């Protein structure tokens, strides 16, 4: 499904964008989005996510390259002819219209008759469980309710593609999680294609079929959530998504998809080479905290271990979080599940830690 580059419903083909003619805000963007896919653009502030969305919606023009929708180039199609639904971060509900009129607007400009319109409005409102609010003004709704109306309005004219730019950014955590679920549910039941922008990685991981991680105007990695989390392609992605430990070193040996990395302290660790190819290259090894083990019996045969000193032990309920000093730095973190018989480590205790080679990734030095 998702990660097969099926029919390319939306295609960005070598797209570039510059606002001032000097700096490129989007640099050579190539992206195929399949029909029915839920694609999330994730990235830090200023990485060009909104700009990409605006180019797709037609509010900004690409300075170079081509954007195709359903096989047709849309660079010269004005926004109102693209038939793309859009949810804005501040909802952009028209303040001088009631909820019903807001939803009726896209149908009205399409010349739809009154009775058809009413049926559609009702259906869309029921879809977001807001049928009772048809005569309210946006100002009389709570943030979450406005959000639902904005969603209903973007869907009411049955667009094939819906763009959402941080639609949940203004909501509190609980409501946000609830709305994530609802949006995902609507996506599944309507079969629409969604391009979703967020800088909340949790949101991206839970909702998306695929995530495009943006940084500095480029897609750093485009992959399904699990792959993104477990097999980050470079140190930016590894650092941006989830927590991870970084160890700087030099490749000592590389063979059979295994790399041996020597740390500055002289110790050796195992890793999977991702962005390194030769001996002697500098590399940044990234290990997820939950993949670090300190019980020798759980480590694979022949795995290298490092000496570690427990600095801090935090009880977090379902997990334990242990901060240890490793290879001269004391911000190395390991997480272990609070299972039966799990030992409570004491600060100052000396242990040896290690990991399976496939859980450590030798990436480009940042």
């Amino acid at each position, binding site marked *: 499904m998702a990660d097969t580059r099926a029919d390319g419903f939306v295609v960005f083909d070598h797209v570039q964008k510059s606002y001032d003619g000097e700096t490129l805000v989007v640099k050579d963007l190539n992206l195929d989005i399949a029909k029915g896919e839920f694609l999330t653009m994730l990235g830090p502030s200023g990485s060009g996510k909104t700009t990409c969305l605006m180019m797709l919606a037609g509010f900004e023009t690409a300075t170079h390259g081509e954007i195709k929708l359903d096989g047709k180039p849309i660079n010269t199609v*004005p926004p*109102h002819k693209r*038939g793309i*639904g859009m949810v*804005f*971060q501040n909802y*952009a509900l028209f*303040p001088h219209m009631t909820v019903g009129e807001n939803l009726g607007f896209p149908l009205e*400009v*399409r010349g739809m008759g009154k009775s058809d319109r009413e049926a559609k409005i009702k259906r869309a409102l029921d879809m977001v469980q807001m049928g009772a609010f048809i005569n309210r003004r946006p100002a009389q709704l709570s943030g979450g309710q406005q959000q639902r109306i904005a969603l209903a309005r973007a869907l009411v004219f049955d667009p094939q593609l819906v763009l959402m730019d941080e639609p949940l950014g203004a909501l509190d955590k609980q409501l946000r999680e609830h709305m994530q679920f609802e949006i995902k549910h609507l996506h599944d039941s309507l079969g629409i294609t969604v391009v979703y922008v967020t800088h909340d990685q949790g949101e991206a991981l839970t909702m998306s079929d695929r995530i495009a991680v943006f940084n500095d105007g480029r897609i750093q990695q485009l992959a399904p959530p699990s792959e993104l989390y477990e097999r980050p392609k470079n140190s930016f992605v590894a650092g941006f998504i989830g927590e991870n430990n970084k160890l700087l070193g030099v490749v000592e040996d590389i063979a059979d998809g295994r790399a041996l990395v020597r740390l500055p302290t002289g110790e050796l660790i195992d890793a999977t080479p991702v962005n390194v190819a030769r001996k002697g290259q500098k590399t940044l090894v990234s290990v997820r905290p939950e993949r670090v083990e300190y019980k020798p019996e759980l480590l694979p045969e022949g795995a290298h271990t490092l000496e570690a000193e427990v600095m801090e032990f935090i009880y977090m309920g379902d997990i334990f979080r242990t901060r240890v000093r490793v290879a001269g730095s004391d911000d190395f973190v390991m997480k272990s599940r609070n299972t039966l018989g799990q030992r409570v480590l004491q600060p100052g205790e000396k242990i040896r830690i290690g990991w399976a080679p496939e859980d450590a990734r030798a990436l480009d030095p940042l």
Partner: protein
Amino acid sequence: MADATADLAGASPAKLTTADGRPLKSALARAQAKARRRAFLLVLPLLLFIVLTFILPIGQMLHRSIFNDGFAANMPQLTQWFVDNPVGTEPDESAYAALAADLKSAAEAKTIGVVGTRVNYEMSGTRSLFTSTGRKAKNFEPPYMQAVLEADDKWADPQLWGTMRQVSDAYTANFFLAAVDLARDTEGKIVQAPEDRRVYVMLFERTFLIAGLITFLCLLLGFPIAHLLATLPLRYSNLLMILVLLPFWTSLLVRTTSWIVLLQGQGVVNNTLVATGILTDDTRIQMIYNQMGTIIAMTHILLPFMILPLYSVMRPIPPSYVRAARSLGASSWTAFRRIYLPQTLPGIGAGALLVFILGVGYYITPALVGGASGQLISNLIAFHMQDSLNWSLAAAIAAVLLAAVLVLYWLYDRLIGIDNLKLG
């Protein structure tokens, strides 16, 4: 405190009290009254200022428009005779005796001119009758009727007596009638003023028309500029704002002089048009000292009053509204008309109301560049204040203007709602 909680918890809804046992409600009321008194003291200076400089003068003006005792105060005996005898009574010897006595005393007190002027307002050409007869009044002997008529036989005119009867009442609606080109005939019936004296209605019409036109022009010119101001990056919009506010910062005379330089027959604009061949030397357009001058100059001066409220309404409208409309399928024109324009209505209303009201009462610009055809009602008010010294008529015209503006304000409130007004 413990028993207070017990009270609250108890079944009977006990009255809340303060710590020292007084009822909470009255204690609260007293505390609030004190706060209100203090707040009132703060606004008192402003209140006094407004009463002294605004409410009192306007009240006085309104009073003057219906009250003129120029006749009644100086001709007491004749006034009394009018009171004692019903309308239509032929003036008899007693009437002439009262007239002669009043003329004599008024001439001595040198108020005969005031009396003549007052009667002259209603019936032209009578002022000299009063002053000339007044000079002879000290020699009058009974029978007075004969004496007065010998002095001037115009005194027999029944219309004069009808007019004198009308003006003997210090309270009169005649000034208001005059302000809308009406008058009373000898029987006191309301009729149209003589054709050659009908100017006020025409001037009111012209004033409202020109003010309306100026409002429309200001809206037409101001809307795009306000939009530009609201959407341009700050450093450009600041510059533009300075240009917009320039009229406020230049002296009126400098501005007017530059208008004269630009717009006169041999002025810059005409010269340019002739030089570019659009006009020839004998088709130069007179753009100043006429209505066109008034319209151009006032549009320029009042433009900021339109732009500023518009700007303050447009500035906070996020561009995402129009974008949302566009993404929902509206063409840029539809998005403007259905989404953007309605949200600027409070600013349009405020700007239009402001410009119109200021335009209706504008005096100095039409006086300077309006010529004869560009004069507005305010220039006539000024004329009656300064030249003809008929303050009552000036007050009546001003009151009509005030009433018209208030009606407009009320209409606006009914149609758009005053709470929708946004001045900035």
